[in-house]
């Protein structure tokens, strides 16, 4: 498997209520071992997955949101968040976790992982991908 493909994982669902978000994250983490050109997108209700300060104690579910902060350690450095999806839900970038990655080539400088993109811009990014995993 020498070829490298552009892989994008698209998250469109709220973190709880259904299992899609959690099982999608499992695919992202496993997939990181395959050394593809990976990006992750959060759009529609999927933007709720990144909201900071989640508390699941009332619903008996594991709060898996801290795992997103580990994506940088898995060399997943491109996380697209759709601007309109945030706005439609009354959210801003400040409501989301601050996700970073460390750039080895620049003395492990911390860099932002989240790229805020418009719906139209996201369309162009989608068009560049080889494989879309849609959750």
């Amino acid at each position, binding site marked *: *498997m020498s070829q490298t493909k552009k*892989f994008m994982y698209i998250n469109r669902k709220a973190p709880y209520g259904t299992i*899609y978000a959690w099982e999608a994250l499992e695919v992202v983490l*496993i*997939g990181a071992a*395959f050394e593809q050109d990976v990006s992750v997108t959060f759009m529609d209700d999927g933007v709720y997955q990144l909201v900071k300060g989640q508390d699941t104690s009332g619903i008996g579910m594991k709060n898996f949101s801290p795992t997103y902060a580990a994506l940088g350690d898995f060399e997943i450095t491109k996380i697209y968040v759709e601007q309109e999806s945030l706005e439609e839900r009354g959210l801003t970038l400040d409501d989301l976790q601050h996700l970073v990655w460390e750039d080895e080539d620049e003395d492990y400088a911390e860099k932002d992982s989240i790229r805020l993109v418009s719906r139209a811009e996201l369309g162009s990014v989608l068009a560049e991908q080889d494989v879309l*995993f849609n959750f």
Partner: protein
Amino acid sequence: MKLTIQVNEGPYQHQSADSAYYFAKAALEKGHEIYRIFFYHDGVNNGTRLTTPPQDDRNIVARWSELAKEHDIDMVLCVAAAQRRGIVDDGEAERNGKDATNIAPGFRISGLGQLVEGGIQSDRLVVFGD
């Protein structure tokens, strides 16, 4: 064209298992190759042989098994998703101390890496689900 198909929904509750089946069948008839069919989320329920639909309804599980046999298709149930939902083969029964198995013929249980590898090896990954 070489295809990997991902099925994310269980049978009967949701049409995606039917749509994926008809897509797979049509693709094979057109001469395309199916590299793998990967069942994820509730999709793993497509692989239990204990399914007993009414006689006048389609048997979704048996239909998959027949398709796999006829065309020698690799049909994989995600192990983590299958464990959560109680889909068990001999190996899983032994590992997890279960007293029964229910995997249907033509299916095997393996890891999510099989899905990712399907995406790498195939010309298209086609996903069925919400």
